[in-house]
């Protein structure tokens, strides 16, 4: 019998103090981490606004001083601005006066931000610089004499950039970004972000009907890749038996799923049998160029999907490159903001190849659709059925990195870290 509490009224909204992890066992994940409002509130405090570096923007999105972008740290709206050649500010998108979320444009270029409600005005660094009628009108009204502009600024985040990627943290105690990523994740990060100047190729946005952590789990779960994604196996992009790895940091919160496409690999009858429905015998692409990998990276891997805790995915799937920015929207949904990019100096042909391969990923991707549907099906399971728990026992002696696809070791390492931070 699972020892997760069955909730009398059928809801999953029990108080956080009453929640306990089943048997203190990392190979079992209780539903309530995906459904509880209280858990999400604690995640906001301790993870997104805690000792974490959150992705907020690419430098390439902000080419000039005064350029800004609406962004998020967790679900908290922020504004990212370029304030100098190599200087960026990140501050809360909330007027210090009455709380208006004052920046409404997705991106743009300004000299200052003016809150539309009472015209409180901020410079591009996020400093309050003007309050209309501060001294009143004809000697009447106005702010108290001692009112100090400097005491009324939107909350500032600390900023750290690496090779064109901008991160923010609210905590003074977050370790330096490179240390936070750890050498294993940094190595994979630097393959895509090597310092080559990025060129933004466009955006997608979708709202997934699942808890934000499910997206991390999905990419820390290479087991599903060979089964759910019929496309991967059928067109030999990823099959059990090919060279692959899950590369984890020491803390266990980040991971990179890596694989090397191997056109020579034979798919034997035993493998076809094991994959059951996941392999369509005899299907060929009409456009054979579609899965061609144009070598451009110093890496043994043709695919790396890095989950960078808590809100960033770096996608390098053949030659389609992108980042995915996770914004939690309550316990049951997340928004995914995708920024697809290439590099300055890409030939027109290379850009076209990236666009073609873009069909693999995203809200209408040959692989993307499968994951979005699976995440919804998971959340439906947690919401609709009696409270229960998931089982993550594959590759039982390991935690963190592994060299087989048939493993859930890096999901377990994530939840070891998560439980410590969340104190659950």
């Amino acid at each position, binding site marked *: 019998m699972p020892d997760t509490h069955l909730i009398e009224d059928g809801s999953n909204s029990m108080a956080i103090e009453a929640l306990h992890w089943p048997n203190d066992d990392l190979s079992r994940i209780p539903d309530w981490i995906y459904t509880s409002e209280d858990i999400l509130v604690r995640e906001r405090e301790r993870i997104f606004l805690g000792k974490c570096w959150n992705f907020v923007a690419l430098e390439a999105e902000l080419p000039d001083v005064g350029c800004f972008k609406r962004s998020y740290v967790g679900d908290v709206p922020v504004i990212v601005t370029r304030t100098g050649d190599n200087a960026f500010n990140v501050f809360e998108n909330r007027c210090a006066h009455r709380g208006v979320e004052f920046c409404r444009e997705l991106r743009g270029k300004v000299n200052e931000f003016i809150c539309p409600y009472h015209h409180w005005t901020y410079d591009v660094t996020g400093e309050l610089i003007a309050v209309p009628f501060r001294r009143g009108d004809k000697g009447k009204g106005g702010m108290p004499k001692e009112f100090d502009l400097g005491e009324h600024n939107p909350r500032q985040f600390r900023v750290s950039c690496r090779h064109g990627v901008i991160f923010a943290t609210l905590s003074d105690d977050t370790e330096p970004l490179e240390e936070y990523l750890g050498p294993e994740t940094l190595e994979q990060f630097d393959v895509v972000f090597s310092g080559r100047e990025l060129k933004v190729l466009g955006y997608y*946005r979708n*709202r997934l009907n699942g808890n934000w952590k499910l997206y991390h789990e999905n990419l820390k779960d290479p087991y599903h890749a060979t089964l759910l994604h019929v496309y991967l196996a059928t067109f030999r992009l990823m099959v059990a038996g090919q060279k692959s790895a899950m590369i984890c940091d020491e803390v266990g919160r980040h991971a990179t799923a890596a694989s090397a496409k191997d056109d020579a690999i034979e798919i034997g009858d035993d493998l076809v049998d094991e994959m059951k429905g996941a392999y369509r015998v005899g299907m060929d692409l009409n456009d054979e160029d579609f899965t061609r990998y144009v070598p451009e990276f110093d890496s043994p891997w043709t695919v790396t999907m890095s989950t960078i805790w808590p809100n960033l995915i770096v996608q390098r799937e053949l030659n389609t490159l992108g980042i995915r920015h996770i914004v939690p929207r309550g316990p049951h949904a997340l928004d995914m903001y995708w920024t697809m990019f290439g590099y300055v100096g890409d030939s027109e042909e290379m850009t076209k190849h990236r666009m073609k391969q873009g069909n693999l990923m995203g809200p*209408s991707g040959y692989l993307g659709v*499968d994951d979005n549907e699976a995440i919804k099906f998971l959340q439906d399971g947690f919401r609709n059925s009696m409270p229960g728990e998931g089982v993550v026992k594959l590759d039982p002696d390991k935690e963190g990195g592994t060299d087989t696809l048939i493993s859930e070791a890096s999901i377990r390492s994530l939840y070891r870290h998560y439980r410590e931070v969340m104190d659950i």
Partner: protein
Amino acid sequence: MTKERGRPPVEKFSEDERRALRFKIEEFNTEYSATLDDQDIHRWPSFFTNDAFYRVTAKENFDQGLPVGLVWLEGRAMFLDRVAAIENTMVFAPRYLRHYVTNVDVLGFNDAQEICAKANYLIVETLMEDSTKIFQAGIYQDIFVYDESGCLKLKFRDCIYDSLLIPNDMVFPV
């Protein structure tokens, strides 16, 4: 890349020409919509020329001249591969989709004597055991040509959606 193909009209039609073309394009869009509404997906590539370009992209990309598409297809082979993926490999819950295509505007010939047109579209989606919801609102920017048998075909269709935040995912083309 996309801009070149989406060459603007340079020559207007006479009222008679426009009336005749508008009728033909409305019939085309009606059949196109019915094919997608019926999920008769393997018929979908036949609405396009062999060298056609098709893209579904957010208005924020279009407005900035950015090339990405949720769907980005060039040439018959890529159309066939998307159809094959939908029919054989993609995993998704069953759904009904219904297209409403209106405000057909026949703009004129471009410099290659091809017909430029646009139309608004609205797609509503119904998932089983869920209420019907607006899935996507957008505009088709089209270039039509006649094939050898005199039938209208799309040489270019850019589907530019206002609904920036896609609800979960987009399985079928629009």
